[in-house]
């Protein structure tokens, strides 16, 4: 139990709650995996900003 773990339930509900917004769905799943892969200190801010910039450019609200 604790940080660094992802489970199928979370991925499933992200998909359902994204309601066909594939860009946000993939963005969040990507973040989930990045966080799980980087436990401890890491340069998350740059990583997040890059992804947000890339995804929001393609995204339609």
């Amino acid at each position: 139990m604790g940080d660094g773990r992802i489970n199928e339930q979370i991925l499933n509900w992200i998909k359902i709650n994204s309601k066909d917004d594939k860009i946000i769905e993939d963005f969040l799943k990507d973040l989930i995996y990045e966080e799980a892969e980087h436990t401890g200190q890491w340069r998350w801010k740059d990583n997040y900003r890059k992804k947000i910039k890339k995804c929001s450019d393609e995204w339609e609200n």
Partner: protein
Amino acid sequence: MATMPDRINRDKKDGELYKKLNGEEFLKFKGSGGKRTRKEQFFFAMAIGFKNNIKRPLNTKEGFFLIKDLLPIDETLINAVAINDYDSVEILANKGEVFKIAEEYAHAGIRLLVDKIESIEFGKFEKKLEQEIFEIYNKIGLKNG
């Protein structure tokens, strides 16, 4: 056709995760004796990634097992996953891409598989997995005979 790769890769960081599979006897040992091979563990991880419809590109690749160790049934499964993903049989013309799809499903799936193991006490993983498989099986609706 693109150059035929000679091995299936995994992400270097997945090494620690595959080690954790060894903490669960069902995924470490064969019932009939001996240890489960890397190939067998890879296929299981791939299935879990496929089930959750999630692939992850590999960051630092390392060879995991050789293509020549794939049996016809293994290659069939990898091809089927690739055809399903690409939505066309044309993908089979690019074996490199076919294996890449399998590798990416496995890279995403191994983390989910490790979570499944860590979320349940020793001795109960198999039973839980059996329940989940039956849930899927009942939806398939394939009848015997």
